C-alpha cells in the first residue's frame, strides 16, 4: 500500500474552489463508483481512499423539507430542505423560486450556485421539465 502524501489541498477547499468556478462537483470513489457528500478523504461507502472529483448533474428530489418561521421584519419565513441528488448523496439546501410553504417532498429540483459571497453554496429551484439537467 502506498502512503498518502497530502500533495493536494483538502476536500473542503476543492469543493469550494469548484463552486467558485460555477461547477457543482463531488468526490466519487474509484473502487465502488459511488459519490459521497460531505466531501471526505475516504469513501464512506467502502473505505477506499481512491477518489476523483466529477461534476454532478445538479438534478435531485426533495427528500424532506421544513419551513422555518421568522418575523417578516427579519426576512420572513424560509425553507430548509434535504435534497437527494440523482447521483445518490443527500445535501442540505434551500429551495428558492417558490414560497417556502409550497415546497413539497418528492418534488424534482435543480441546483444552481449562489456565488454572491466568498463562501459560495448550492441552492435549488423547482425543475421545469421533470428530469431535465441544469447547465452552468
Amino acid at each position: 500500500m502506498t502512503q498518502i502524501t497530502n500533495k493536494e489541498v483538502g476536500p473542503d477547499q476543492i469543493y469550494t474552489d469548484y463552486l467558485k468556478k460555477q461547477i457543482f462537483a463531488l468526490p466519487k470513489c474509484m473502487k465502488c463508483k459511488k459519490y459521497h457528500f460531505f466531501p471526505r478523504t475516504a469513501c464512506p461507502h467502502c473505505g477506499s481512499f481512491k477518489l476523483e472529483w466529477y461534476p454532478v448533474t445538479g438534478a435531485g428530489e426533495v427528500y424532506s423539507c421544513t419551513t422555518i418561521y421568522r418575523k417578516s421584519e427579519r426576512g420572513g419565513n424560509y425553507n430548509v430542505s434535504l435534497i437527494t441528488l440523482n447521483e445518490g448523496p443527500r445535501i442540505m439546501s434551500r429551495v428558492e423560486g417558490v414560497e417556502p410553504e409550497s415546497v413539497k417532498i418528492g418534488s424534482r429540483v435543480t441546483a444552481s450556485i449562489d456565488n454572491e459571497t466568498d463562501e459560495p453554496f448550492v441552492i435549488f429551484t423547482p425543475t421545469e421539465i421533470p428530469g431535465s439537467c441544469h447547465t452552468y
Partner: protein
Amino acid sequence: MSHILRGSSAIVGIGQAGCGKAEGRTPLDILAEATHNALDDAGLSLSDVDGLFTGSSYHFMPTLSTAEYLGIKPRFSDGSMIGGSSFIAHTLNAAMAIHSGLCDVALICYGSNQRTAGGKLATMSEQQTYEVPYKPHYPISSYALAAARHMYQYGTTREQLADVAVAARQWAQLNPEAFVRDKLTREDVLNSRMISDPLSLLDCCLVTDGGGAVIMVSSERARDYHHKPVYLLGMGMAHWHRQITQMPDLTITAAKESGQRAYEMAGLSVKDIDVVEVYDAFTINTLLFLEDLGFCPKGEGGAFVANGNISPGGTLPVNTHGGGLSCVHPGMYGIFILIEAVRQLRGSCGKRQIDGAEVALVHGNGGVLSSQATSILGTEQTL
C-alpha cells in the same frame, strides 16, 4: 448462557436537584446538589465514590471539572460525550468498570442551569460547515425534517404528534415535581406558534435547569443500601450519523439496533417491558423510538400514540413523570429518564406508579437523532 454483565450491577441511589429553576447556580453547583441527594438516598458519602461518569455542554473536560469541584479522586472516570444519550450509555460503561474491578462505587451525574442562564442551548459543538449557509435552527430543524418525512411516508399527522405532548402533560399532572402541569389539549399544541414546520412550540421540550445523579455498585453489595436495588439487565448503543444530512433514512433511527442489543443482553423482549421512558426532546422522538424499539410496527407510531394510548390508563405507560415535554429538560436529559425508571421499579411514584412494574426500558437520544442508547432495568425478581 446469559451475558456476563446482565444483572452484574445495580442502581442503589438516585438524586435530583434544581429541576425547573435554580437561581444563582452554576451547572456544577446543581450537579453537586443532585450528587448529594443520590448519595444520601443510598446512604453513602462522597469519599466512597471511586468511579465518575459525566458529560457536559459547559465543560470541555467534564470528569476533571466535576471531580475537582466535588473534591474526589476517582480511580476510573469516563466523560464519553454522545449528547443527551451519554448518561444512559454510562450505565454500560459503569457496569463494565464495576464488573472488572476498576471501581466499586460509580457516580453518573449531570447538571445544567440552562433556564436561568438565559434559556439558550449551551453547546460546545463544532459548526456543521455544510449546513450553516441554510440557517437551520439547531436542533429543531433536523427533527422537523424527520417529522415531515414520517408524515409523507406514513400519513402521520400533526394531531398524532400533538397527542404525544398531551399524554406527557397528563402524566405530569400526576407528578408534583413536574415543571408544567396545567391542562393541555390537542388544539393547544396545534395552535401554538409554528417554529420549524411541522413542529410548533408545544411539540418542543421544556427549557429548565436541573441536575441528576445515579449511584451504581456491584450486585453483590447492592442489598446493603437503603432501597431495593434496581439491576441493569441489558444495554445497547448505536449511532449511524452526526448531522441530519447523513442519516440514512429519516424515519428509522439507530434505536432499532441499540434496542436489539439491549433486549439481547437482558434476554428479554418488548412484551416483557412494563414501563417505558424515552427521550422526548420533540414529539416526533417518542413516535420514532416506540416504533424502532418494537412497541409498534414501523409507520404505525402515529396511530399508536393517538387518543390516549400512552397516557395514564392507556395500554403502554410512556414517560411517566411527564417527560422532557412537561417535567424537566435541562439541555441534556438522559439522566432524568434513568431516575424515573428507578423510581417506578422501586414503586415510589405515588399517583403515577405503574402497578407491579418489574422491567423498565430507558431510551436516550443524542445529537439530531444521532446517538441512541437503550438500557433495560429490572427488580430483583427479574434477575
